[in-house]
């Protein structure tokens, strides 16, 4: 009887089973055929996601239920803006994420505001908006698995991803 009344949307549970995403892109690079960032690991190709991660920082973090950029976040985005100015051929997507302590729908909206905060800051810093897109993943793609503040603080983030 109960089964007849219920239409269950059953999903494989992806939050817990999703291992922490490895955002390190690429791998070994032929140093002879690649330029490198100054003063950095010579195996890293300049202007790539790996370069951004290692030498600039690809992400900023947010306080609980906030889309305001902290002082640390603004410093990271200043560095990202300078990097994007240097590598003017790169385009990026900015991802906004939330921790798991909120409803799916609210967190989609919150992730959207976080991504837009990063997008707007970079735009004001002079980055052409034609080079940038932004998207919200809400709480659907945590970086760190775990149900404590350590994990949550790393999941409340805006991530800049090089798309070309």
């Amino acid at each position, binding site marked *: 009887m109960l089964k007849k*009344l219920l239409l269950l949307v059953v999903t494989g549970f992806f939050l817990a089973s999703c291992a922490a995403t490895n955002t390190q892109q690429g791998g070994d690079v032929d140093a002879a055929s690649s330029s490198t960032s100054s003063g950095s690991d010579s195996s890293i190709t300049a202007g790539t996601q790996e370069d951004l991660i290692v030498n600039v920082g690809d992400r900023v973090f947010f306080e609980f239920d906030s889309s305001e950029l902290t002082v640390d976040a603004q410093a990271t985005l200043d560095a990202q803006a300078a990097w994007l100015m240097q590598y003017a051929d790169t385009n990026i997507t900015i991802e906004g994420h939330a921790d798991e302590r*909120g409803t799916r*729908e609210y967190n989609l909206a919150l992730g959207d505001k976080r991504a837009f905060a990063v997008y707007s800051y970079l735009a004001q810093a002079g980055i052409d908006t034609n080079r940038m897109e932004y998207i919200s993943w809400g709480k659907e793609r945590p970086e760190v698995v775990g149900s404590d503040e350590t994990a949550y603080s790393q999941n409340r983030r805006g991530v800049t991803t090089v798309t070309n």
Partner: protein
Amino acid sequence: MTFAPRFSPDSKSVVMSFSDSKTANSEIYSMDLNTRSITRLTNDSGIDTSPSYSPDGEKIVFNSDRSGSPQLYIMDKDGSNIKRISKGKGVYGNPVWSPRGDLIAFVKNRKPNFYIGVMDTNGDNERIIVQDFALESPAWSPNGRYLIFYRQQKSNLDGTGGETTIHFIDITGYNERIIPTPRDGSDPAWSPLL
């Protein structure tokens, strides 16, 4: 981005959240499904989402952080007469209007737990039905006597835990049963009566 869609009780329109890419501000809109005409219902810098129609289609309950934290509000179907109804401590979300029209089910987060409860449509007589580490997505039975929802267990750094299960409960808070699913289950929805 469009998200959080819900049919009106007469199935002639849909209410949803729409976030303009120029502002990333989520507002609630309704769409007439025959004409595809769209009406903006909210206009506020806060997040407005999770709309749910009353069974007569005249009102909408929704989630907004316009006061500084996520709370529950009701408005007329044209967006007028917005009133906050949630009054308790904590933050609220995911409101769902009962098919009988008498109650609104909701999710509430007050550290460290989540709660699913019901309140009168003016926010009075809030009553918690179930609490746990993580609860979400209450959905009403067509007769307005039961809710289904899902629980999520804590997850661990090694990737274990985090299981989700679907549960059924009487709105008195008694007679909770797990609804067996082949794997983890989440985000249940109840079909209308045939």
